[in-house]
């Protein structure tokens, strides 16, 4: 049995700290976890846009018309669609988190089952919402 060389002390500081994604093999669970963070950050950006929308509405007709026009552009529609999809994912997976916090579904098997359930529900609700939303904005 070969004896491995002791790592240098200087390597210690270079070790990746917590959520070290670069050394993780992608799994459903870890991917869903990072997506929860990713959608969370996206929703924060969206929240700022909602605040601007409310300010425009409070400011008056002209500001609101400008805001509405921006929402109607291709970029506007993409941003709103992305926001709604992120919200649906974060909402569904958030329920999963609250379940864990309450002590339910923590074993590996159930974690995968609820993960797949979230993925399916996300696809169905997301598709329905986008279809309804895009159909009604002609």
């Amino acid at each position, binding site marked *: 049995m070969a004896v491995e060389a002791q790592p240098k002390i200087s390597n210690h500081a270079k070790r990746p700290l917590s959520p070290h994604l670069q050394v993780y093999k992608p799994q459903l669970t870890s991917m869903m976890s990072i997506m929860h*963070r990713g959608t969370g950050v996206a929703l924060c950006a969206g929240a700022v846009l909602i605040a601007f929308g*409310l300010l425009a509405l409070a400011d008056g007709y002209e500001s609101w018309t400008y805001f509405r026009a921006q929402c109607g552009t291709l970029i506007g529609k993409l941003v709103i669609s992305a926001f*709604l999809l992120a919200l649906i994912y974060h909402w569904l997976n958030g329920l999963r988190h609250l379940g864990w916090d309450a002590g339910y579904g923590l074993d590996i098997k159930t974690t995968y089952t609820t993960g797949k359930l979230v993925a399916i529900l996300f696809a169905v609700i997301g598709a329905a919402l986008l279809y309804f939303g895009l159909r009604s904005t002609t």
Partner: protein
Amino acid sequence: MSKRSSTASLKSPLGVARGLGSAKEGVGHWWYQRLTAIALAPLSILFVWLVLHLLNAEYDVVRATIAQPFIAVLLMCFMVSLFYHGQLGLQTIIEDYIHQRALELTLLILVKFSALLFSVASVLAIARIALTNS
């Protein structure tokens, strides 16, 4: 024992540490993240319904809808919970991934101040819509 007696409190070091932790707030961050999540679950359904409902509505209709006290109050709750929940989440992400202390602190201050700024702005906007609608 000499170290123990130098502290004014009669609490044991374990007693001091228990429930507070390194951030000196105990489970506060965790608890408020969950509390706002529970609030946001139904409130975000209301928000999505509101967006879909008002998608093609005229300016006056949008204002009149949001001006209704029931909707105005819930929308205020939504915006405040949203920004509070968001800044707690961003704080966790910054603390996890930013390993340079100065940058970490700068981002944290920026996130906390922005969250407060935008939630106050949102509440003022909704209040203005609710109170000046005619």
